[in-house]
């Protein structure tokens, strides 16, 4: 669409606040006045409260559960255990990854803080007292924490329920703690390259277990109406429609009798994709007791038991020519999935899109293999602010490229430029089979290097390195990453058999305002603002009068939800195409009203006008009224459309990030002096919101790279599950961010948009590591394990002999 230049047209266009407008957010009015409606804000008459008895041990047999003391506490109504759920066959539930997970521990516990019993009481204080009064006796079992020991012949048997099962959801299981082995690429071709390449290197790259930790914890209010046989559940879910399907499958209630509502969500970041035992128990309790039941996790429960992310132990190998052209890539991953395989990936991809690990580079031969194992840790493995396992993939390739540059004595920008998929190669099919839609990496890299005076930085660094009295070490980090988002083409991607399309329904009201309903759900991304902008530009209706509704399965069309940066690539496309259906009908109506043929009309911002006669036109407002008042003969009245969009491909946003750090040689503290993030997400819908998303993603990336970890001791105790220890940076620690962009639209997306919110997280983490390691590069250090806390970095200072 060409931008108009006529001031009058510009004015009309601006009034729409459509694509490209930094429109202020529609949702803010309620949030800034304390009128948000989060799950814990919901109250219902007669509502009861549920709290959960959890295992203090990581692996143990349950010898006895004594409810009697708890039931004596005033206000306690019921205590449920696995034995109570057994007759309903609800003590286990299916996971999204084809495994089963205990709803309440069935005879044994598999991880610390596993759900053992629930207490339902009249208020949350009594419920908490009840939890403390439930007596559980355990018999301790040997604990398996180190995934490297999971497949030893004498490793403890974790999943007794799987005894004798040699076939899992993703193929053969060859050990009692083995979940799956999955691979991609051409092993023979990669092996051949490695056998003959002039340069090869191998590095173990560990991506620690972290937690998405949204500020709002998980919870729900389940309300079953025994008279109508209807279940309404308000829930912290990034995918309410999927929840409805699962609840229907579990409970036997028809989907038509189930209404799942995701109200305002206080951040998700992948943590709110899964279906947790707490939800199931609250629903069961509501059905059993015939009253609404609320369950809200506390922070410790959130970090300890609901979905973690990462925990990938990666062995990466790269083969190259002596002058730095990459010839081949091999990655072997040991994936710690915890006690139940509850990863939220598309069904066919137990390691998600990890095979994007060839990155932004033209690599002729590549192979990766991922082995998932059980350990005595909480289940999860979600995409924490990234598409499925893309963060891990980007991390491994960016680290390997850095290490290769170092080995060859090349500059890390130079080696990247040398290996980029070139602009003219798009669409580009990678050795793993992904078809990259569009990109222009070199232009973006040049822009960043210039903006940051990369040469100057290198000169400054050389000077600092020459000064033995310098109190700090200076490091320069670089990452040039490509993401794969927008799952996905349903020929490849499904969740529980449901294709990963998304949907939109738009209704234009007679007076020209509109409502759009979506299968996604915002958790802070500002859908209510940005979706309207797409419609505004497509249909010439001001954003201000377009209402966007999401999250209520009774009103919204079926959608797979918001995660993996899929809202704009998938739902955003559904909106544009639904709008285009309306546009086509509007054209018919306009032609009828103006008494000309459809082909005699031109579309201009907000109206159809007769070609060559500016005075003869009908605005969308006129057309809307007419749609309900005098539709053309043979055309049904009304003006609305539904579109289910099944994308032909993923989208491939990319970015170039540069970071400068100064490391205190005394304490190991790392100060981020500069962070420059250039993102290319294709067409930009709302630059203000994009920038906000990037700030947030960078900050979460900073948290992961510099401090987040979930340390377990040998007994399986999770140490550090409060916000005292789990690193969420405050105003003071968070660096200042500089943002920039290029625009390379996706050729297959209706408006050319690619999705953005996760890029900064995915891209920044390897950038930080690159910068920290770079500070030590002149001392021969190739790689350092995250998180780069002061303590860890100090150990490196010490090992390298440069600690003060």
């Amino acid at each position, binding site marked *: 669409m060409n931008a108009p230049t006529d001031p009058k047209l510009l004015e009309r266009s601006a009034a729409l606040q459509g694509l490209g407008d930094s429109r202020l957010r529609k949702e*803010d009015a309620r949030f*800034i006045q304390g009128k948000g409606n989060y799950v814990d804000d919901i109250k219902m008459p007669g509502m009861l409260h549920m709290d959960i008895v959890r295992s203090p041990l990581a692996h143990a047999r349950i010898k006895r559960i004594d409810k009697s003391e708890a039931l004596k506490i005033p206000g306690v109504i019921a205590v449920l255990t696995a034995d109570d759920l057994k007759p309903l066959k609800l003590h286990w539930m299916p996971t999204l990854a084809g495994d089963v997970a205990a709803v309440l521990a069935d005879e044994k516990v598999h991880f610390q803080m596993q759900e053992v019993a629930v207490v339902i009481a009249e208020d949350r*204080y009594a419920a908490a007292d009840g939890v403390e009064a439930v007596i559980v006796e355990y018999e301790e079992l040997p604990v398996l924490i180190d995934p490297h020991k999971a497949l030893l012949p004498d490793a403890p048997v974790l999943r007794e329920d799987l005894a004798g099962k040699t076939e899992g959801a993703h193929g053969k299981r060859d050990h009692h703690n083995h979940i799956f082995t999955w691979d991609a690429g051409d092993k023979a071709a990669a092996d051949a390259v490695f056998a003959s390449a002039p340069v090869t290197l191998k590095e173990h790259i560990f991506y620690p277990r972290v937690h998405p930790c949204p500020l709002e914890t998980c919870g729900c209010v389940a309300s079953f109406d025994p008279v109508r046989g209807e279940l309404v559940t308000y829930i912290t879910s990034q995918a309410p429609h999927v929840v409805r399907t699962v609840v229907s499958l579990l409970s036997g209630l028809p989907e038509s009798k189930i209404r799942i509502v995701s109200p305002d969500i206080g951040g998700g970041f992948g943590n709110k994709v899964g279906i947790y035992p707490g939800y199931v128990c609250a629903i069961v309790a509501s059905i059993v007791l015939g009253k609404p039941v609320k369950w809200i996790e506390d*922070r410790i429960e959130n970090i300890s038991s609901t979905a973690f992310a990462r925990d990938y132990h990666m062995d990466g190998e790269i083969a190259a020519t002596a002058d730095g052209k990459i010839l081949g890539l091999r990655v072997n991953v040991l994936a710690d999935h915890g006690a139940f395989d509850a990863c939220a990936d598309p069904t066919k991809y137990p390691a998600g899109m990890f095979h994007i690990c060839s990155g932004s580079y033209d690599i002729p031969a590549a192979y990766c293999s991922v082995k998932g194992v059980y350990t005595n840790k909480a289940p999860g493995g979600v995409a924490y602010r990234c598409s499925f396992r893309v963060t891990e993939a980007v991390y491994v390739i960016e680290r390997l490229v850095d290490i290769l540059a170092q080995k060859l004595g090349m500059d890390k920008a130079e080696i990247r430029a040398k290996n980029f998929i070139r602009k003219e190669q798009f669409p580009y099919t990678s050795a793993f089979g992904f078809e990259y839609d569009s990109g222009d990496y070199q232009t973006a890299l040049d822009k960043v290097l210039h903006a940051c005076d990369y040469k100057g930085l290198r000169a400054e660094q050389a000077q600092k390195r020459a000064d033995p009295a310098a109190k700090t070490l200076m490091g320069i980090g670089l990452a040039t990453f490509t993401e794969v988002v927008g799952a996905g083409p349903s020929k490849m991607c499904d969740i529980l058999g449901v294709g990963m399309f998304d949907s939109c329904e738009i209704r234009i009201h007679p007076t020209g305002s509109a409502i759009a309903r979506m299968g996604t759900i915002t958790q802070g991304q500002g859908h209510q603002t940005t979706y309207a902008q797409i419609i505004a530009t497509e249909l010439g209706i001001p954003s201000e009068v377009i209402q966007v509704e999401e999250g209520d399965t009774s009103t919204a069309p079926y959608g797979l939800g918001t995660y993996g940066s899929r809202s704009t690539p998938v739902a955003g496309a559904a909106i544009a195409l639904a709008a285009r259906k309306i546009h086509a009908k509007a054209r018919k109506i306009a032609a009828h009203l103006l008494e000309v043929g459809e082909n005699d009309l031109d579309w201009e911002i907000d109206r159809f006008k007769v070609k060559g006669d500016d005075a003869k036109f009908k605005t969308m407002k006129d057309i809307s009224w007419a749609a309900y008042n005098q539709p053309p003969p043979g055309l049904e009245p009304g003006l609305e459309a539904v579109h289910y969009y099944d994308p032909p491909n993923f989208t491939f946003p990319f970015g170039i990030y540069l970071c400068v750090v100064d490391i205190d040689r005394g304490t190991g503290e790392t100060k981020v002096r500069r962070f420059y993030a250039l993102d290319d997400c294709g067409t930009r819908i709302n630059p203000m919101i994009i920038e*906000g998303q990037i700030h947030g993603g*960078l900050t979460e990336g900073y948290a992961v790279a510099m401090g987040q970890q979930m340390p377990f001791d040998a007994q399986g105790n999770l140490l550090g599950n409060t916000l005292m220890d789990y690193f969420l940076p405050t105003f003071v620690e968070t660096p200042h961010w500089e943002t920039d962009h290029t625009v390379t639209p996706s050729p297959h997306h209706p408006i050319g948009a690619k999705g953005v919110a996760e890029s900064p997280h995915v891209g920044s983490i390897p950038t930080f590591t690159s910068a920290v390691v770079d500070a030590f590069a002149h001392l021969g250090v190739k790689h350092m394990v995250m998180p780069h806390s002061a303590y860890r970095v100090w150990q490196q200072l010490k090992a390298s002999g440069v600690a003060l």
Partner: protein
Amino acid sequence: MGKQLVTLKLNGKRVEKAVEPRTLLVHFLREDCHLTGAHIGCETSHCGACTVDIDGESVKSCTHLALQCEGAEVLTVEGLAQGAVLHAVQEGFYKEHGLQCGFCTPGMLMRAYRFLQENPNPSEEEIRAGMSGNLCRCTGYQNIVKAVQYAAAKLQQTEKVAA
């Protein structure tokens, strides 16, 4: 451990309720007074989502007993706007895109409101230090800093006009 009476002024109105002594202020506000603006994020006084104003001081209401508010004046985010007129901090958060999911926002607003009375003309560094008891997972803080700066400028202008 029977209930005890607590009387306070909440957003300008007198409130009197009987509560269990252990009732935390944040639960009292949310459950007993139906003011759900203050949120519960960490429960260990680290995140600040529950911040309210008690007698002119910012307090984390998850680590404060309702009974400790006997005779106090408590202001929550619901009491920040004057009728339909938003307070400058509310306007600043809106104008500068200082929020995303909105969960931390009431606490941020209440802290910013008080902070700007403690320091009407703060530097960026002072804003970052003064707001450091509030966590946000979405924004990366940069726009919140701008929002506070916006509010500071606006408040100073209003003062000038008044003077």
